[in-house]
């Protein structure tokens, strides 16, 4: 999230509108928005219907492993506050890019909490969409 925020301008220049989606309780959303200073819309998918529609995974071994523990330790070292498990602790996230015509052009379903496409990969995909648009493809 921090990387997306830092490179928001680059993403916007390529015509992207960033939307975050969570299945956590709506009551916890304001604290998360304050803590992350996220400027993006935060949608609350309490029933995870959109998670399912986009095929986001649930996995015990994917969600909980040594890397996850290290990641939480690092976040707490950075001053993030542990708020306990909210909702389904096995649910994983992911990323999707939908082009202006409503077609899925990138779909990454995380296998672990840290398994995310790099911002450079997202920018490359968006840049490709811009090139297609320019060429009339």
């Amino acid at each position, binding site marked *: 999230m921090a990387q997306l925020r830092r490179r928001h301008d680059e993403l916007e220049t390529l015509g992207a509108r960033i939307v975050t989606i969570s299945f956590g309780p709506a009551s916890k959303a304001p604290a998360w928005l304050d803590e992350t200073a996220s400027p993006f819309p935060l949608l609350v998918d309490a029933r995870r219907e959109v998670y399912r529609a986009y095929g986001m995974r649930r996995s015990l071994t994917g969600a909980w492993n040594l890397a996850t523990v290290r990641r939480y330790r690092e976040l707490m070292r950075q001053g993030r506050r542990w708020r306990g498990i909210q909702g389904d602790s096995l*649910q994983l996230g992911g990323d999707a890019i939908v082009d202006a015509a409503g077609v899925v052009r990138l779909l990454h379903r995380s296998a672990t909490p840290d398994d995310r496409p790099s911002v450079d990969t997202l920018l490359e995909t968006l840049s490709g969409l811009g090139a297609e648009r320019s060429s009339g493809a």
Partner: protein
Amino acid sequence: MDAHPQVTAALGEPAPPFELPEARGGSYGLGDALAGGAHALLVFLRHYG
């Protein structure tokens, strides 16, 4: 809530539409994200942790 859970997104296929509550108020959907010819980058969080 206007999600379509029976649809599973796939590369190159139309994205499943949705409309969800927005944490700052109101609701927001895929159509809002794409308005004006924008592309949408959907970031599914693991949770608020």
